[in-house]
């Protein structure tokens, strides 16, 4: 690994919020107490990213993804730990760090709502002190890659979500930042627009060597774009490694969800393991390459009084849960 462009060591972020009792009486009481809840959104994270890497940073809602990104971008000050981005401590050198990075928050827009898209890009030109020639050249490039020509004179509020996201990407990349943080850039966007966004990210990474941290909970973004994946769960790193390795381990697995009323004990089947149980419903995991679904279902039906069953692909949540089960043995 060459000299890392991102270095994160023992990063911790705690949030303090007033402790709220439920109900109206509780709300009133909250006004007079100083009790606080401390939430560790990020709980001792360390990783390094080499220049030009495209890293998927994945976790469930509230796992600490966005909080990490906000510390890397210099928006939030960590409770403890270190962050270095291209040699700078982001929150101490906020403005200089901002010149090196591009940020897209999928849920928000940095564009001026009421003005034509081009006005926001003109602002980028001035904020990042681009020369006229650089601006013209880069604008031509993003306009072509993101197909923005017709959108430039359109007020941002009239753009669809996918178009707006392309506008936001253009604004984040126009000045060729060394590091690009994409926080759920495909959230709520239709399939076609998603694909266009993905190919743009891949292109930036390939041609400019832009380092990309991609936060998402759409695993397809990661599959399409990233070689490396960092999984985060409850503020900690649950997995950090190659995507293909993770896929080989888990993603071929299928999940059998079955309802067996009047059966309290464990469900024993060869080639499948029980992972969860709620009342009569049992979740079983199996690898269809080893155990064909048909034979599994046949065995199941011969042994138990099955009321209903469904076979599902394993989603990210299951992968994360499974990794945790394997790693700690206790936390689920």
């Amino acid at each position, binding site marked *: 690994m060459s000299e890392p462009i991102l270095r994160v060591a023992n990063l911790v972020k705690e*949030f303090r919020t007033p402790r709220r009792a439920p109900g109206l009486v509780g709300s009133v009481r909250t006004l007079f107490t100083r009790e606080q809840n401390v939430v560790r959104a990020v709980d001792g994270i360390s990783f390094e990213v080499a220049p030009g890497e495209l890293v998927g940073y994945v976790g469930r*809602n*509230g796992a600490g993804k*966005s909080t990490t990104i*906000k510390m890397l*971008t*210099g*928006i*939030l*000050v960590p409770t403890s730990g270190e962050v270095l981005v291209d040699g700078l401590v982001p929150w101490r050198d*906020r*403005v*200089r760090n*901002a*010149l090196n*990075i591009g*940020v897209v*928050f999928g*849920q*928000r*827009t*940095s564009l*001026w*709502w*009421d*003005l034509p898209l081009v*006005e*926001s890009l*003109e*602002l980028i030109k*001035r*904020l*990042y*002190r681009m020369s006229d020639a650089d601006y013209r050249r880069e604008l031509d490039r993003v306009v072509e890659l993101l197909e923005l020509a017709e959108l430039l004179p359109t007020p941002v509020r009239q753009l669809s979500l996918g178009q707006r996201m392309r506008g936001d990407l253009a604004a984040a990349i126009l000045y060729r930042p060394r590091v690009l943080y994409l926080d*759920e850039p495909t959230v709520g966007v239709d399939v076609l627009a998603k694909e266009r966004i993905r190919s743009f990210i891949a292109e930036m990474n390939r041609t400019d060597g832009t380092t990309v941290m991609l936060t998402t909970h759409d695993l397809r973004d990661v599959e399409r774009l990233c070689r490396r994946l960092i999984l985060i769960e409850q503020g900690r790193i649950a997995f950090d490694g190659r995507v293909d390795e993770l896929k080989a381990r888990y993603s071929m697995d299928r999940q059998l969800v079955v309802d067996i009323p009047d059966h309290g004990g464990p469900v024993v089947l060869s080639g499948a393991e029980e992972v969860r149980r709620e009342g009569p419903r049992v979740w079983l995991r199996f690898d269809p390459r080893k155990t064909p679904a048909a034979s599994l279902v046949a065995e199941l039906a011969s042994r138990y009084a099955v009321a209903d069953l469904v076979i599902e692909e394993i989603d990210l949540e299951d992968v994360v849960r499974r990794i945790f089960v394997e790693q700690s043995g206790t936390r689920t």
Partner: protein
Amino acid sequence: MSLFAPAMTHLARMDAQTVLTYRVNFGLHLLGRLLQIYLLKVVWTAVYAGQAEVDGVSLATLIAYLTLANLQTWFIYPEAVDVFPNRVRSGAVALDLVRPLGLLPQLIARSLGRTFAVTLLVGASLPIVALVGSLRPPASAEAAGLYLVATVLAYGITLAIGIMLALTSFWTLETSGVGVLFLFVNQFFAGALIPLWFFPDWLRTVAELLPFQTQAFLPLSLYFGRLQGGDALHALGVEVLWFGLLWIAAIVVWRRAIRRVHIQGG
């Protein structure tokens, strides 16, 4: 600073353009102001009950004063008080914080842009304003100059107060209450409803110890030539003092606020 000037100018222009897109909004605000000016005129005319002067202030001067005071508190009003806390509440402030331009310069630029647009629109509506209230030129060229300087300082003072109030949203996450309080206190102590001339002594003392009088009462006292010579310089001195104090305070508040940032939402 010069490095940032093009970005700040563009930011100002963008916000000015945004104001100009919402002309209906402006029209409604204008209507409200006109109504207030009209009602003040009616009430004060009744209070004067035919007397030519009260405490050396003629009714005509008073109406012209109130008309201008209401315009003055309008275009000086720091929009940041209304706009910024919403950005903190929604988490959009995250995007302000990743720009390679400090948050304070951004707020200053955007505020100047809005004021520019509002001033243009107010200027265009002066004929109607004159019809509803009354307008009068400054007492002299000197009075006009002093008024301009005082108004520029007043703008800076009010902006510093507005930014400080806006930044409290980093702690409380809610400042609509603060905004409303500001609106009342500001209007009253700026002298936009009753000039400080008519305040009882103790209240006048209170008003003179607060920065709000710099917004309408002091500049307009200069405009109408009621403060001259040493008194005029004293008034400017008071504004300069407030300007310095409040900007130092605003910067201190900002330094603390930034460590408290707590972005809402994912």
